[in-house]
Structures are given as structure tokens and as C-alpha cells.
């Protein structure tokens, strides 16, 4: 039985763990910006970790339930309210048919995940229900949800006890200033040594141009480039390269001024040089950054990146152990 969308919130999209396999055509993996939060929300309602849920940015939607269900809200601190009564985040909540789910204002983070037992059951596109708005794929007609939409819900399987909650030490939220670990590489050699050192020593701030495709940062010193004759095909600006692929998490600095980290809805390639990539373990944090958040980029090597990845896997394992 479906959920009726009364009001839409802000950029509320349906997201699961994404659609790998089409990046070579410019169709990104997509999926939840904060995958840890999505997994936790799903586990708290007895779903597969990769079931489709709602991802709300800053402002939650108003939803009417037409059937009893379990829900959980994780990620950014966006307190849910059932018929006006404030409920706990990161906790299994029982919802009765006819009840209205709204949200209080966002206390921290940027994106909240709203999972429903059974998962959101819109039609998959290229193997995923994730909304990719730029390509009009997935979700509801390839766009954010809108008032009047009816969200189909799958058959519920799990039986998680109401009030099951995830201990605070298993929730991962960005610090302040947030630290994003970066593995230098790609076109790092285009920076002068001084510019490279400055990039890691300065404090940057999240700019207003920050969305599922990428996060822009401001406030640091413009990059100095190693001088060279621009290669044929690249274009004349020293930040230009012969158009190539962009890794997820890669940091480009168009014109040498404002770094952009590409995220889940990344463009698959282009003509701006990239200086390296945020390590996979820290990608979830980026989606929780609000504009103006002070940010430090921390230089790491592959060994540290892989260790951080193992730590994150262990954290997910810990979440599974506590809930199931």
C-alpha cells in the first residue's frame, strides 16, 4: 500500500545503492550520498541494506501512510514527527495507517534518509531505483518527489522491534572543521610544490554550489601551476586537459580557483585537471556538509586509504550486529 506525498520537502529523491555499469556512457552510479546512513535506515526497518529509501536535503517532506509500517530516519539530524509528536532519529518507529509523517527543522548534517519497511518500490531503471535527475532516470519519473505523488511500497519482510536504536558511536557524522582524506594523484604534478602544500594547509569552505553531482569549495589561495606548453586538444587554460575520465571523489580545480569534489551523480569525464580523490571511506561525509562548513583536506597514502576502508566496513558490520 502506497505513501501519499502531501508536501515535497527539498530535493527529496528516491535512492538506493546506485546503478554501476554505465559510467562509460556518462550515466553515473548515483545512489545515496551517505551510504552508511542509508544502510542503517534500512536495517532499522528490516529491509535489505540496499533497498530504496527517501533522501531529503535540509527539509523533509510531509507523507501520509495508508498502511501500518516501520520507518527509520538516519543521516543528518532531521527529527521526524508523527501526527505532530516528535520521534527519535536512528530508531525503529511504528507508523499506523492514516498517520502523517512530517519533520522538524534540520539540526545538523545535510541529508536525511527515510526508510520504510518493504522499501520504496518504484520501477528500477538500468537496475536501480535511484533518482538521477539530470538524466531523468529512476525515482518518480526521473525527478524529485512532488505533492500528489503516490509512492508504492514493497512487501515487508523484517520484524524489527519498535524502539530499536543505533548507539551514537555507530553513527558517523562529520566533525567541525570536517576532515576529508585525499589521496593525491591524477594530475597532481600540474601543481607547484608550494600550491600542493597550501591546498592541504588551508581551510576551505563549502560553497553554495553543492549537490549530488559535486561539492564546490571556496576560500583557499588560487592554485599555481607548473608551467608547460598546453598539450594539443586540452585548451589554453593551465587547468585544462585533454578531456578524460573523472573518478568519483576526484577533486578538480577549474581555473585553479575553487576545488570541486565529484560525488555520486558525478559527470563521468571532462576537461579540467584533477589533483587526486577523496578516499572511499570519507565519501559519505561529504553529503552531510552544509554550505560554509570549514573543511580541511588531509593528505593520505594508499595504505591509509585501505585501512580507513576496512574501518568503515567494520563499522557497517557493527551496525548489522547491533540491529539484527
Amino acid at each position, binding site marked *: 500500500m502506497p505513501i501519499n506525498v502531501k508536501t515535497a520537502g527539498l530535493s527529496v529523491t528516491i535512492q538506493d545503492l546506485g546503478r554501476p555499469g554505465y559510467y562509460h556512457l556518462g*550515466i553515473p552510479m548515483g545512489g545515496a550520498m551517505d551510504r552508511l546512513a542509508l544502510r542503517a535506515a534500512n536495517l532499522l526497518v528490516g529491509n535489505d541494506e540496499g533497498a530504496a529509501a527517501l533522501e531529503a536535503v535540509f527539509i523533509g517532506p510531509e507523507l501520509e501512510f495508508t498502511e501500518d509500517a516501520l520507518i527509520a530516519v538516519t543521516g543528518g539530524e532531521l527529527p521526524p514527527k508523527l501526527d505532530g509528536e516528535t520521534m527519535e532519529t536512528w530508531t525503529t518507529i511504528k507508523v499506523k495507517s492514516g498517520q502523517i509523517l512530517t519533520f522538524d527543522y534540520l539540526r545538523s548534517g545535510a541529508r536525511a534518509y527515510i526508510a520504510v519497511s518493504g522499501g520504496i518500490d518504484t520501477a528500477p531503471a538500468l537496475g536501480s531505483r535511484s533518482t538521477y535527475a539530470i538524466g531523468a532516470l529512476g525515482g518518480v519519473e526521473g525527478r524529485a518527489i512532488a505533492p500528489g505523488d503516490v509512492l508504492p511500497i514493497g512487501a515487508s519482510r523484517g520484524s524489527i522491534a519498535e524502539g530499536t536504536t543505533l548507539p551514537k558511536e555507530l553513527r558517523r557524522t562529520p566533525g567541525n572543521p570536517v576532515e576529508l582524506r585525499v589521496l593525491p594523484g591524477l594530475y597532481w604534478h600540474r601543481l607547484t610544490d608550494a600550491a600542493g602544500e597550501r591546498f592541504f594547509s588551508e581551510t576551505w569552505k563549502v560553497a553554495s554550489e553543492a549537490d549530488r553531482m559535486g561539492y564546490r569549495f571556496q576560500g583557499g589561495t588560487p592554485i599555481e601551476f607548473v608551467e608547460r606548453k598546453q598539450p594539443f586538444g586540452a585548451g589554453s587554460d593551465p587547468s585544462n586537459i*585533454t578531456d578524460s575520465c573523472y573518478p568519483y571523489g576526484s577533486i578538480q580545480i577549474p581555473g585553479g580557483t575553487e576545488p570541486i569534489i565529484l560525488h555520486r551523480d558525478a559527470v563521468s569525464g571532462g*576537461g579540467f585537471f584533477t589533483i587526486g580523490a577523496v578516499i572511499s571511506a570519507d565519501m559519505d561525509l561529504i553529503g552531510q556538509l552544509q554550505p560554509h562548513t570549514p573543511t580541511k583536506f588531509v593528505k593520505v597514502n594508499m595504505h591509509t586509504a585501505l585501512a580507513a576502508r576496512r574501518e568503515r566496513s567494520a563499522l557497517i558490520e557493527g551496525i548489522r550486529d547491533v540491529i539484527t
Partner: protein
Amino acid sequence: MTTRFTFGGDEHIFVEISEEMSLEAFFKSLSITNAVRDTEIKGVTEICPANASFQIKFNPDLIHPDDLLTELKRIEQNADLSDAVLNTRIIEIPVFYQDPWTNETLMRFRERHQDPTVTDLEYSARINGYDTVESFIAAHAGSPWFVSMVGFVSGLPFLYQMVEREKQIQVPKYLSPRTDTPKLTVGYGGCFSCIYSVRGAGGYQMFGITPMPIFDPEQKTSYLKDFMVFFKPGDIVKWKPINREEYDQALAEVDAGTFEPRIREVVFSLDDFNKDIEGTNTKLEEILYAN
């Protein structure tokens, strides 16, 4: 060409065949990515060929980054250009140059441009040594183009001009990318033309617009029923300049489901092309326009 290997975080290996664009670099990249696909290396999840480089995405839980790097270097050593022959197709793409929609957009983002006092076409014509926008458009539409990469956003083709290097058009990208580009804009950056498959961000100079969809997630467009993405690397394109009336007509045909792009099967040999560029292009056009 010196091949450069580098990691992109802990999930990607990026391989630059050459800093410069060339068809030789494209074919070498194609040859290696085909070999990587055939090798079915454990943990490899995405293989993305680009113009003169490529990228492999992998799961480091399944293969250590250093082991994958070793394997890719081995494959690169064995790559050769003997198979630089493609069974491909040539496609005519209508373009309405100097259209009102890209003009409106370029005016909106003028402060991000190298020369805010002129249009993208006027700027591109001037820096490439053309006296008029018209002669510049004639050069853009005068030769075929080779699709050397598909990506950026959904099915967007990067196209490489099939003329002698000294005749190739080069323009810089915008100083800072725009947040908006009309759908189906024909753009230009570095030595590449492109067609923006969907509306969105972009850093290329804007020359015109085509009425012909190249990405259709609903697959309702007559020629996109089998797959939602039109282009693949190796396709060859010939632009056909059209006016407003022809643009509207083509758009109506697209909407009615009756628009059929002109497409012909061709064989492209890099050797033959390098030996006689003009002759090869003439033959390609003859095949395109033969009935």
C-alpha cells in the same frame, strides 16, 4: 606517446595514453580497454575509455590496487595498433548554429567567459583566425568528426575533427563551468566538439543546437527504442547546418516519431586515413549521401 598510470583514490586507476589528443592515442586506449574487458580481471567494476586515456574502477576489497596496476601495465605492454580498423557508422546531425537558446544562455553566463563582449562563436572564430562567424561555421561543418569518447553526462559524445592538425579548431573551456546548458547544445572545448545530451552544467563554448535527441531514458524516440544512448566511441558524424524553419520541421518530426537520422555503415582504417585524409573523408561523405 608515454603512458602514465595513476590512482584515483582507492577505487580507480587512471591511465593517460598521451597528454595530447590524437587518433593514435584513442585507438591505443580502445585496444587496451578491450583487452582489459576480455581479461575479466577480478574486482574490476567499470571500464571507461576516454579520448586519449581511460579509467578502471575496481573494488579494492577484491583486488589490491598494486596488483591491478601490475596487470594493467602488462596489458599495456602488449597493446598494439595493428587492429586500428573499425566497422562503424557515419551519421548526419543537423545543427542550428547561432540559435536563440544557446545565445540566451551564453549571455547569462558572460562573466565566466574569456571575452564577455562577444558571443562564444565570435570569440572562437577570432582566436582561430577566421574573419567571420560564417566562415568559421563552414569549417566546423565542413569535415567529418570522430566520436572519441562518450561520457560527461548521459550519452554525451566528444567529437574529434578529422582534418590535418594545423586545420583543427581549438578553443578554451569557460573560465568556470556554467551551471546551465540547453539540452542538445553543440559545444566546443579544447579540440573537441560535443553534443550536450541533457540540460545541465557545462564548460564548453556554445555554437548551436541540434533538434535530434541523442539520449532518451523513456526510449520513445524512434531510433532509441533499443537503447537509450545513441552514440558509441568510433561513430563518425557530419554536421549539417540548418535554419530555424528546418529546425522546427525536424523537431516536429522527432515529436511525431517520424524523424530518421541519416546513418550509413562504414569501415574506418586509421592507416588509410593518415595516408589520405581528404580522400578518406570524401569517401565517407559519398557513402553517407549515396542512396
